[in-house]
Each structure stands twice: as structure tokens, then as C-alpha cells.
């Protein structure tokens, strides 16, 4: 599949290794684009294909009091700069007032812009999300954003390929988030470096598009250049009748073409990893990168289990930062905050799970919990389904769409030393706020821990509905 997409996009072969590839969709946001616009202005260049470029505001947008002026004036300037740039170059912008605004990796699929076979780029590492549709989708730097503006192409060194074959069926209560955290714990945070990962196996075939997006989204946390899943009927059903999907007869033709992208059963990969999903438990990270995790039934590991003194050092640092001790059971870790959101887990399926868990319960009085839908459309759909009411009744805050506390560029940040159960993708030092402590979990695990005040095994949850 990867080779088919690559080969069909080659504009020019520079050498055996380096290629110029055509870009079908360029997604931009306020943080990584201003310097690229400056660059093209300085060089007296222009945006070659504004019609293949889509902008939204997500990284620093407030999730509360949107009708009021922004308190953060530097952030406001960044948002205004994006609006001006889009206007000057004729680019469609879904800003804070738009019903289509949201996290860039949530809105493109839901608007039907992410089609199988496309090459999609964005100045954001989680662009790998779109690979769930059988696209080659990669995060790029701002210089490359400028390159795409000017040429609608990217220069790429051909990456190696890695197959991650997931077999078996997921046990009840286990999500694709647990799956990807388990995979990263097995192959390491640089285990897929220089590779494009293709997820295969019967487990994937049963995954919804939302679950597939979660899996591909966090491929970058294993160091992968991109994550991909071959399109199938689940993909086509998802795309049917979306705003920018081909309509009626064209859709049938498109499906025929998309179906040809199916992975060749004899495809050769540079690396193959087989993983059985049958024994995966709910996962919780305890350290300062997404590879430092353990099943909910586990404990904080002993330093000695990491080998030499040099190998123990980063673990020691991580535990010190997280204020955790070896042998501490995960289920006894108390939390102060819960964040349900981010491009990893903020789609309607995630919110439905949260609703089912919290219905009839109240957020623990020691915990402050918030739900931030991935897009304004997701928010509206959730409200139509009455999800917001159940969640608010339980004591969660119900916010407007954006990246929010996944990276804390707006006001949604942890206070120093607060401990958070988060459905986001990175537990790096300071990621959610200076000296904040992040534990990555699935939406179900985050919701349940908000109720209990500590991590708890979702498999034994007593549903009240």
C-alpha cells in the first residue's frame, strides 16, 4: 500500500533515495505557519494551491468564554496573523466562530477530506492520524510548510517499512489506546524510527475508524514517520455522505479505486512485529515518555529491572519528576485532574464511552475533570445525543473544541505538581503545565479515575445504565 501511494505521487526522482512528491492536502494551524507565510512573502512567492490547503485554529484557542476577547495577547496576535495570511492567500480558514473548527486531525477526517491514497502533510507531528484511512500522512517542520506553500510538493527520503501485525480480538473494556500504549511499551519510543508503520491483522479489521485514528495518531510516539491502515468497508462507510467526500456515482468510482490500495498479502517489509492483543490490559503510563507504562494490575517497576546504572538513570529521573516510588501499585495512585480530549481521544466514540462510564456517578470531590471535544461538530453531535448533559451532571466541565491541555498552550494547564489522568498522547516533563505530572490512559480509564479519585481497573466497572 505504501509503495503504491508513494509511486503514484512522484513528481521527480532526485536520486535513488530522495524524491519530490505531490501533496494532495496541506493542513495548517496558527502555531507552525506564520514563519512559513513570512518566508514566501520575503521571497516574493505565493501559495501554489490554496484550494488544497485548509486552515483551522486549535493549538492556542481558548475552550471557554469564546465570546470575550482573548486574555493572552500574544496568542491573539498569532490567531489574527493566521486569519490575515489566509485572507491574503485565499485559503479556507475554520476559525473559532466556524461550526467546522476543531483540532486539525479531527476536522479533516470528519469533513471527508482525508481520502485513501492521499498524501497529507501538516506542521504537526500527529498528522500520522490520517494514516488510518490508508493515506501517507506526515508531520513536517515550518520550512517544509513553506516548501509546500510554494510548490505543493515535499522532498522526501524514502522511509523503510515496518509491519505491526495485531492478532486476536481485544478483550472487553480494552481500547485501541491501550493497544498503542502496549505496542510502544514493547517496541520502545524510537522502535519505529525511520519507518512507516503499517498495522495489519484481524484485530484491525474489527476497529472503528475512530479507534484506527487513535492507533495511527500515536505511531509518532514510537518514533514512526507515519502509521497506516489499508482502507476497507469500514473506511468507505465512514466516508460516505461526508461534506467533502465524493458524492453518489463518483463515490462508487472512488471506492473502486480506494479498494485497490489493499495491502498485497505478499508485501515485503523491512521489519515485522507480531503482537497478540488478547492479553492486553488497561494501560497507564507512570513516567515521562509514552513508553514508560504498565498494565493497571501492575506496579511502578523496580529500578534494578532496567539493567545497568546508566540505563536506570532516566527511570530514576522520571520517577523523581513524577513523585512515584518503585513497587507502588498503579491503582493506588491518586489524581487531581482529569483531561479527556486531544487529537488522540476526543471523537464521538470516545465521548460515548465516557458517558457510559460516568452516567449516574459523580466526579470525586478531590478531582477537577474536563472534557474537551475534538471539534465543534463533535461537540454539537454529542449535545444532540445528550452526552453533554450526562457528563455535566456527573460534574465534568464541558468545553469548546481545541488542543487544550494536551499541550497547554492556552489557559488549560496543570498547576505545578498536579497529577493528571489524560487521554492525550505525551507525558513529557512540563507538557501539560510546568512541573505537572501526566499519566496517559484511555478515555474509559480517565473517566473512571475521575469518579474514583485514583486509577481503577475499568474491566470491573459497575455501569449504572
Amino acid at each position, binding site marked *: 500500500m505504501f509503495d503504491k501511494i508513494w509511486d503514484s*505521487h512522484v*513528481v*521527480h526522482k532526485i*536520486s535513488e*533515495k*530522495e524524491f*519530490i512528491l*505531490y501533496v*494532495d492536502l496541506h493542513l495548517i494551524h496558527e502555531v507552525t505557519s506564520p*514563519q512559513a507565510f*513570512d518566508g514566501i512573502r520575503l*521571497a516574493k512567492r505565493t501559495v*501554489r494551491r490554496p484550494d488544497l490547503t485548509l486552515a483551522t485554529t486549535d*493549538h492556542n484557542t481558548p475552550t471557554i468564554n469564546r465570546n470575550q476577547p482573548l486574555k493572552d495577547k500574544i496568542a491573539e*496576535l498569532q490567531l489574527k*496573523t493566521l486569519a490575515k495570511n489566509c485572507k491574503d492567500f485565499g485559503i479556507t480558514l475554520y476559525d473559532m466562530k466556524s461550526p467546522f473548527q476543531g483540532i486539525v486531525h479531527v476536522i479533516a477526517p470528519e469533513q471527508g477530506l482525508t481520502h*485513501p*491514497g*492521499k*498524501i497529507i502533510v501538516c506542521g*504537526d*507531528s500527529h498528522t500520522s492520524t490520517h494514516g488510518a484511512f490508508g493515506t501517507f500522512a506526515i*508531520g*513536517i*517542520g515550518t*520550512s*517544509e510548510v*513553506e*516548501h509546500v506553500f*510554494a*510548490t*505543493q*510538493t515535499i*522532498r522526501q527520503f524514502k*522511509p523503510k517499512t515496518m509491519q505491526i501485525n495485531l492478532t486476536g480480538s481485544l478483550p472487553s473494556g480494552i481500547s485501541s489506546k491501550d493497544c498503542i500504549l502496549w505496542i510502544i511499551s514493547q517496541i520502545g*519510543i*524510537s522502535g519505529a*524510527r*525511520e519507518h512507516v508503520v503499517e498495522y495489519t491483522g484481524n484485530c484491525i479489521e474489527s476497529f472503528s475508524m475512530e479507534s484506527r485514528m487513535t492507533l495511527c495518531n500515536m505511531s509518532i510516539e514510537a*518514533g514512526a*514517520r507515519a502509521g497506516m491502515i489499508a482502507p476497507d468497508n469500514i473506511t468507505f462507510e465512514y466516508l460516505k455522505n461526508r461534506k467533502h467526500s*465524493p458524492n453518489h456515482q*463518483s463515490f462508487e*468510482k*472512488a471506492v473502486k*479505486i*480506494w479498494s485497490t490500495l489493499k495491502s498485497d498479502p505478499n508485501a515485503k517489509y523491512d521489519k515485522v512485529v507480531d503482537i497478540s492483543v488478547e492479553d492486553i490490559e488497561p494501560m497507564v503510563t507512570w513516567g515521562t*515518555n509514552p513508553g514508560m507504562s504498565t498494565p493497571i494490575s501492575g506496579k511502578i517497576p523496580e529500578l534494578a529491572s532496567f539493567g545497568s546504572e546508566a540505563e536506570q538513570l*532516566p527511570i530514576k*529521573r522520571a520517577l523523581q519528576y513524577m513523585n512515584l516510588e518503585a513497587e507502588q501499585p498503579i491503582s493506588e495512585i491518586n489524581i487531581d485532574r482529569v483531561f479527556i480530549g486531544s487529537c488522540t481521544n476526543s471523537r464521538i466514540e470516545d465521548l460515548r464511552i465516557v458517558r457510559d462510564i460516568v452516567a449516574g456517578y459523580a466526579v470525586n470531590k478531590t478531582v477537577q475533570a474536563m472534557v474537551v471535544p475534538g471539534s465543534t461538530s463533535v461537540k454539537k453531535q454529542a449535545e444532540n445525543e445528550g452526552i453533554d448533559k450526562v457528563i455535566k451532571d456527573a460534574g465534568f466541565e464541558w468545553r469548546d473544541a481545541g488542543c487544550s491541555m494536551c*499541550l*497547554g*498552550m492556552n489557559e488549560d494547564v496543570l498547576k505545578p505538581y498536579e497529577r493528571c489522568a489524560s487521554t492525550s498522547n*505525551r507525558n*513529557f*516533563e*512540563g*507538557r501539560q503545565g*510546568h*512541573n505537572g505530572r501526566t499519566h496517559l490512559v484511555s478515555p474509559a480509564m480517565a473517566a473512571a479515575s475521575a469518579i474514583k479519585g485514583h486509577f481503577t481497573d475499568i474491566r470491573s466497572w459497575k455501569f449504572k445504565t
Partner: protein
Amino acid sequence: MKPFKKLTSTILPLDRSDIDTDQIIPKQFLKRITKSGYGEFLFYNWRYNSKGNPNLSFELNDLKYKDSQILLTGNNFGSGSSREHAAWALLDYGFKCIIAPSFADIFYNNCFENGILPISLPNKIIEPLMLKCINKPTFKITINLLDQTITNISSSKSLIKFEIDSARKNTLLKGIDNIGETLHYESKIKAFEDKQGKHKGILPF
């Protein structure tokens, strides 16, 4: 972009692996709309304590290395976010070369876009070099990109030859503007678009 040809400098040892771009430049400094002035925020949360005073135990605050233009560090440097602000901050602070056992993919590419030379060397070379720089802060090397060599300047002894892709090497040596290069193939881009146009709205490629 300034070309990179040769560099002689002391080396700042930062003996940690998996340093992510959130550490290199924290998110609160990503709201600016310019490319310059990020050096003062480099490694901000490690470099300063919560009162904003320099954390003296952090390597960057060690005056013995204040003029180092080479950063020597651990595995998987630059992982996480794609923010090019990380490369801008390193360059603005004064680092022109980073030596590590491995780099995260997006960061590695961002280095070349900004005239920074990232050199990957095996652990068996990095480890003794790290010790050497820790024990002898005045230890200087010369990096010659054309020959792909690192030389110990006090003994003029060549320490190692490093590997680098020839196209990337050329970009750095000449300070090439990639966009200008790609635009040489504009007729090919146009031809690709014309071919694609026939199936507009149906064909994904």
C-alpha cells in the same frame, strides 16, 4: 541559510537520552510569529528554576562550556513535537552541530533546513567522547563536512569519519534553498497537476 563547511569548537556534553522538543523549547514560547530570539528560552524548564534564576546544576549554565557550538547528547534527540522552534532555539543559542547516537526523524530534517549539522555516531564512540568532554571542558574538535571528519585539534589526529547522505551534505555545504531547487522542476509539477486534473474530485491521486 548559512552554509556549513567547517567548525572548530569545544563540546557541551548533555548526557541524557530521548530529549524531546518540549524540553528543547517549551510550548509557552511557541506563540511568537517570528523565527528569531528563541535562544534565551532553550531548555527553559531545565535551565531556570521556578523563580526564573539559572539552575546551576544544569549543563547549559556551566560557564566552562559557554562558547561551545557543538552539543553532544544521547539517543533519539529531538523526539516528539515537529516544532521547528527547537532547531531555531538551538541555532539562536549558538549550536551549529549536534552529535548523538540517533535523532528523531522530523527534528533531523529540521536541522538541515536551518544549517545545523546533525551527526550520528555509534555509542562506542559517543561514550568515551562524552567522558572526555566532561573531564576536559577545553577539549576542542574540528568538524570538516567536506571530508566528513572529526579531528582532535590538539593532536591533529583524525578521530573519526562520519556518514551523511550526499544530497543533505551538499545542501549544508552550499546553504541551498530547497524551495528554489524544487522550483527548477516546476514544469514537472505542472504536468503532474494536469494529469491529475482529469479525475478531479474522484481520484485521490
